């Protein structure tokens, strides 16, 4: 089976710094990584390929430098990669992003039919979880989000059974292929590539597809033009009017500080003591 895994190159959020004066993101020197949630989906796709045979193609939309993330995915064992990159994609919101990615997957399907598409649960920079469902809808793929486990895949009958995380429990769902899956984090252990994979990744030519190459004829559906949402302003939250009242700690023991803290808490909120008393009684 041919599986497409959509990945995104994101800034390593642990390294993001905000300029203290201008409140803008300082992008210089921030390392990029594959969106960590995507790795669980990539791993699951690779496992299915190892078990049933076939091929895993990784797909990303982004600037030309996003090929480093595709190469990384190749070094982990993916068989092929496609970089979807065009100036007309700039400023895409989730609706325009799902359009571009769905178009590329449809194009891939023309030569090599795709049985399953994997996406990350969400990204760490946008955190929307909207692109996966968007692609599923556009390609009319059966949608399976927040999957904890793939129980069974029957290629001949084109059936799949999964365990999907719901509020308060797990749904066991069966559906037909083709389908789109987003894996929940921590559901598998992401592999390191073999030496052979790493060498192959370094040698692989990654095709770069323009919008036209992906079969997109109407660029009004792409990028800023194709995005119904617009970000009006980016800002740091206004500080609270008052800063925290500091408990006096100079020269005090930890026990004195703790006692002063209880007094301060109960003085500031008369009902808090009662709340705690009832709470701790349980």
């Amino acid at each position, binding site marked *: 089976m041919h599986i497409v895994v959509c990945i995104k190159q994101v800034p390593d959020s642990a390294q993001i710094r905000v300029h203290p004066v201008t409140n803008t993101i300082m992008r210089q020197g921030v390392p990029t990584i594959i969106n960590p949630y995507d790795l669980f989906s990539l791993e699951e796709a690779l496992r299915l390929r190892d078990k049933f045979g076939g091929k895993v193609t990784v797909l990303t939309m982004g600037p030309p430098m996003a090929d480093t993330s595709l190469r990384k995915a190749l070094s982990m064992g993916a068989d092929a990669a496609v970089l979807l990159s065009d100036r007309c994609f700039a400023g895409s919101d989730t609706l325009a992003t799902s359009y571009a990615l769905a178009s590329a997957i449809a194009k891939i399907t023309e030569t090599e039919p795709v049985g399953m598409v994997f996406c990350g649960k969400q990204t760490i920079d946008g955190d929307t979880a*909207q692109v996966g*469902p*968007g692609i599923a809808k556009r390609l009319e793929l059966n949608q399976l989000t927040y999957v904890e486990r793939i129980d069974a895949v029957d290629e001949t009958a084109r059936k799949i059974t999964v365990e999907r995380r719901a*509020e308060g429990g797990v749904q066991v769902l069966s559906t037909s292929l083709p389908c789109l899956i987003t894996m929940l984090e921590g559901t598998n252990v992401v592999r390191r590539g073999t030496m052979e994979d790493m060498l192959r990744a370094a040698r692989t030519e990654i095709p770069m597809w323009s919008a036209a190459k992906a079969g997109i004829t109407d660029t009004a559906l792409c990028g800023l033009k194709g995005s*119904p949402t617009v970000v009006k*302003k*980016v800002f740091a939250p206004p500080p609270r009017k008052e800063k925290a009242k500091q408990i006096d700690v100079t020269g005090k023991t930890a026990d004195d500080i703790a006692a002063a803290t209880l007094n301060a808490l109960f003085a500031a909120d008369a009902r808090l003591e009662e709340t705690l008393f009832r709470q701790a009684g349980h």
Partner: protein
Amino acid sequence: MTEAKPAPAAAPARGKMKVELSDHFKTYKDVWVFIELERGQVHPVSWELLGEGRKLANKLGVELAGVVMGAPGDSADAAVAGAYEYGADLVYTIQDPLLADYRNEPFARGMTDLVNTYKPEILLLGATTLGRDLAGTVATTLKTGLTADCTEMAIDDDRSMGATRPTFGGSLLCTIYTLNVRPQMATIRPRVMSMPDREAGRTGRLVVHSLGMQEDSIVTKILNYIPDASKEDAHLAYADVVVAGGMGLGKPENFKLVKELASVLGAEYGGSRPLVQKGWIESARQIGQTGKTIRPRLYIAAGISGAIQHRVGVEGADMILAINTDPNAPIFDFAHQGIVGDALTVLPALTETFRRHLAQKRAAE
């Protein structure tokens, strides 16, 4: 009236980007809230959204509607009644045995159908696994804008909704508009909005719609449902008292100090994002924008610096007590009480002092 005025100073930046709504979308009215009914229970986030929806509807001078989808029966009826009591003026309902358990296909079809028929200008859903699964499909089908995980909503003078959410991994906030398509859709996490008062006996109009699908036409089947053995993450979001730790604890073994204080207070415990990323605690215990949003009576944050993504997840707490060695840590900008000190010494002292204090109070009762 407006034509006579000179061009207002604030308008230009916006005017360039906003497009006049088409006559078709101008007919879209009212604020809708999706009432999430799963396995007989309404998720409390739906009531929280009705509280927020009420404010938006009042500002717009329109009605607030709840949308209840589920199998016919007592729990769907209770959800409809609850929607009125939490503020809905009317309820749109689709009740069909096919909607007994959540599946994307029939729910997305029903919701899309309702929107196309009754035309709301705003549609709010809880940012739960169900709400996000559904919202993404519905927004794509309707080709409209969807803003995830909003923390604040406002209505502009031109009636458009500004949806504010954290961005860039929670390091800044941004305000997003859906320009010229309706409805304007948004998801909001549980506990981000406060729970409105329930007005017992309040009632409203009911609009019944049919799903018009057959089981044969739905590809996805539910084979089984396995309820969770423990519901501890649900407890964290709705806990009255929460104690959490961050990187200031130094090493994973020290997290037990957080648990000990939580245990004495009968509180839930959690941690900041780096702790989850380092594997010190499970992800269900993460507090902040990408974890759980909490609104406890008391929140104690030990060794947490207070990045924006953490701040937006805890700001609804009535009382925040922060412990940090760095007097300039951002957490002191939004905490109510602060202790500049080492969590490793302060936490055990607090645990002991609270334990003694509560024991004395118990003895005195």
